[in-house]
């Protein structure tokens, strides 16, 4: 194999007559970099190896259908897969598309070979995941939400949070996007929870297809991690890159934490029926897979190369998960907004409460009453969906950067950009928008850095709309034309399901951002002060405050 790999290095190409067109730029430089490909993969061995992996996946799929795996699948779990499997194929195929952004900016022909193999890996991941979703759609009791997932994903506020994960790979400075954000942080750190921790939970909920597919995906990630590591070492050779590396590690770490921990944490903690006390919590999994395996074993050793590691942000992420209830706040928000979703969210029961209290002491005092209200209000019975009822919950403002709402209320900050007030879930998200994604950074010209753009607050698009019209516009309605795809319970009895008629009588959708921007300066300051005193669990600020 070594001889074969050495031979194909003879294919490396230095142009003689025309330089390739440079479409994508970077502010990084690679003048002093040693050039090595750590991967040593040739396609002669790659294709049969991948085919063999496929055989195992499709054999397992066949077995699952013949054995009627769906007779024992927990609906609570599979409903969340409607969201997850909507999102994940796009980041995969975006990763495929990000690879050529590196060809021109990483002057290492040896490495291009590895990047090209990652490119086809990513197409593999995207289509194998779409295929898994197709299988669920065909064999699970409730196909709604799987069958329109890509349309839903494109227009729904949760999908858009996931989409920013994908667009982060393909836009802006090529090294920031395709190397630091994608391979060095997303793939090396966070696929551990995506593709290792989550499959274990799927299996515990009667679903052994997701583990089969996602472990097959994860087995490709070591190649991608090698690509990222090789590029990182090249970047470290050049002193001028340190400032950008430090910037990008902070942005990439924090953004991944905000988005991946929000989603996967919720799936694992609130999508499971497995409440064995010795089952690891998401916090425990995070500590093992991300803190120990990535931070302590991968990032910290890079300090010997002089790289400044964002220790403070890693500790702050842990604090968010362990002390500030980040995952619990996110799950509660998803459930508050169940009517804007396209999957069904099961209420937590006494068994769940006991487990949460055991794993996260103090959980019940913070979140228990709200979930009891959620359960009480789950079936339509003259009342409105929980978001409109008085359950001590203030609908949150949206974070302009990570697009997850500002759920840890004490951390919310604001900034005025181009005459508009934006809200951020945390100081690091403010820094990302106001300082990192700018044409200059700490006085240094960064002309290739991207921009945060788009209509980043979903609620604004529907400000003032009746909720029945919102849900119709998004297309989250079942085939009878009135029953909603989303439900705040798992009962498929049509008499227990919410319809557009129930929504018609609700108050209109309101955008916190529109409301904030209608305030004067003093009003905005008062809004911020009140917001920071709210919580936990979305509670209003104390009256005495």
């Amino acid at each position, binding site marked *: 194999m070594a001889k074969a790999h050495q031979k194909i290095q003879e294919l490396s190409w230095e142009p003689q007559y025309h330089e390739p067109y440079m479409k994508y730029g970077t502010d990084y430089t690679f003048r002093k970099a040693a050039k090595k490909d750590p991967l040593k993969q040739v396609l002669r061995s790659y294709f*049969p190896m991948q085919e063999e992996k496929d055989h195992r996946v499709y054999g397992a799929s066949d077995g699952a259908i013949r054995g009627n795996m769906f*007779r024992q699948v927990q609906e609570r779990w599979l409903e969340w897969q409607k969201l997850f499997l909507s999102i994940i194929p796009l980041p995969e195929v975006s990763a495929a598309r990000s690879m050529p*952004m590196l060809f021109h900016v990483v002057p290492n022909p040896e490495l291009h070979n590895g990047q090209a193999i990652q490119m*086809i890996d990513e197409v593999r991941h995207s289509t194998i995941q779409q295929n898994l979703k197709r299988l669920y759609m065909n064999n699970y009791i409730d196909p709604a939400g799987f*069958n329109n997932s890509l349309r839903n994903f494109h227009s729904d506020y949760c999908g858009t949070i996931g989409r920013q994960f994908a667009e982060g790979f393909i836009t802006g400075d090529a090294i920031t996007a395709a190397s630091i954000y994608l391979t060095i942080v997303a793939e090396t750190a966070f696929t551990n929870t995506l593709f290792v921790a989550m499959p274990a939970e799927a299996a515990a909920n009667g679903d052994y297809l997701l583990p089969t597919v996602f472990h097959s995906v994860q087995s490709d990630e070591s190649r991608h991690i090698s690509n990222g590591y090789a590029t990182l070492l090249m970047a470290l050779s050049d002193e001028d890159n340190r400032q950008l590396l430090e910037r990008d590690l902070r942005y990439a770490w924090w953004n991944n934490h905000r988005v991946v921990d929000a989603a996967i944490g919720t799936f694992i903690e609130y999508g499971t029926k497995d409440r064995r006390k010795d089952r690891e919590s998401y916090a425990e999994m995070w500590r093992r897979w991300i803190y120990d395996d990535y931070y302590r074993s991968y990032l910290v050793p890079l300090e010997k190369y002089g790289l400044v590691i964002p220790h403070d942000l890693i500790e702050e992420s842990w604090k968010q998960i362990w002390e500030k209830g980040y995952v619990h706040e996110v799950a509660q928000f998803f459930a508050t907004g169940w009517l804007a979703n396209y999957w069904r969210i099961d209420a937590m029961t006494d068994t769940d409460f006991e487990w949460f209290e055991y794993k996260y002491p103090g959980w019940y005092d913070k979140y228990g009453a709200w979930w009891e209200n959620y359960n009480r209000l789950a079936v339509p019975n003259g009342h409105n969906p929980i978001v409109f009822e008085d359950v001590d919950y203030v609908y949150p403002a949206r974070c302009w950067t990570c697009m997850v709402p500002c759920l840890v209320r004490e951390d919310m900050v604001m900034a005025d950009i181009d005459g508009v007030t934006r809200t951020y879930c945390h100081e690091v998200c403010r820094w990302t928008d106001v300082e990192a994604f700018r044409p200059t950074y700490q006085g240094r010209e960064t002309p290739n850095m991207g921009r945060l753009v*788009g209509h980043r607050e979903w609620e604004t*698009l529907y400000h003032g709309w009746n909720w029945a019209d919102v849900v119709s516009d998004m297309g989250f309605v*079942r085939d009878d034309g009135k029953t909603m795809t989303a439900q705040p319970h798992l009962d498929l009895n*049509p008499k227990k399901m919410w319809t557009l008629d129930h929504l018609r009588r609700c108050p209109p959708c309101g*955008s916190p951002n529109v409301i904030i921007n209608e305030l004067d300066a003093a009003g905005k300051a008062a809004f911020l002060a009140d917001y920071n005193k709210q919580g936990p669990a979305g509670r209003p600020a104390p009256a005495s405050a």
Partner: protein
Amino acid sequence: MTTAQRPERSVPKPQFTDAEAGAQEFPDSGASARRYNYYKPAKRKQTHYEDVTVDVQPDPRHYLAQGWIYGFADGSRGYPLTWTKLKAWGVDKPEPENGVGTGNNHVEEWPAHGWHEFRDPNEEWEMTFYRYNANVVRQTTQNVENARQAKAFDNWTANWKTFVERNVGAWMHIEHILGLYVFAAINRSCPTNMHNTAMVVNSMHKIRFAQDLALYNLTLSEEIEGFDGTAHLDAWNNDAEWQGVRKVVEALTAVDDDWGEMAFATNVVFEPLIGELFRSNLVQQAAAGNGDFVTPTVIGAGEYDYSQRDLRWTQACFGPLTQDKEFAAYNKELMQGWLSHWVPLCLEAARALQPLWSQPDAKPPRFEDALDRAKSRFAGIVTELGLEPPKELSQ
């Protein structure tokens, strides 16, 4: 006698949930709900390939209410349709302007023809792709191994060895560059998931073929006494016969910001006029007469990639654009311009290859006949696309 009690193992308990399809009736429990309902299939029935590729990538003109989330420094976002000069129906229509209270602002008859209606006729996705390429790898490996066992390389004529080490060797560089720096490179730029999947597959065909040739070259170095495994580098870098082709190949990587022109010029012009000229009309024709039945099997795998697969997606991609209900005339004029630019370059490079026809001991059919076949093949491809063979072809 006592029996030791084993402690109960802590494992998730299987539960029967009755969550299989058909277990209950409710809105959306019918068979019609068990298909992806957000896209129109190209034919009557949705294909497996469509299910796993169509609409994975969003588009602000379709369902993407919140628009692109990240932008480049110059303001461009996502996958601008202007990253090729080709146009498909509706491309000049503005994207919906969403804002406060606009809702999704659905585009009912959104620009689809030519871009979003493109389907790869090879229907490539994960399963098909790995099966196909693994089979090619197995077949090629077996062929070469069998030849090695049978000492088949001993039968090569003296000059054929030199021909293979220099010229078949030189060809690996072309496949590698086109795979990596044309097709892989433009997979970022094209507008739909179906396009980029087709281009990634095309890219990997080429890179695999380049590596097949490199590893074949390695085997020959080990099996044939005096076979110079590095001669291909000298031929590629210095031989006059190859410098014209090299100029064209490098020019294909250097097209100024137009993924459409790169793919079109490579698969419509370069491949039939130079690729098939060399692979099919020289190597394949000459090998047997020179005692070589192995090289054609290696070359033939790559030739099949192009002629039976890569050309098919190319025709399905570019053909509809010459019949576009809004931009047919515009696209034809543009593509005719591309033909006028690339055909003379390729013909000049092809003619520079002529001395290769004289190198083997047993001569292949005449160069002029081979070039005529290549031209005829090219004219057929162009005509099928709804274009005119350019006057430059008669040079």
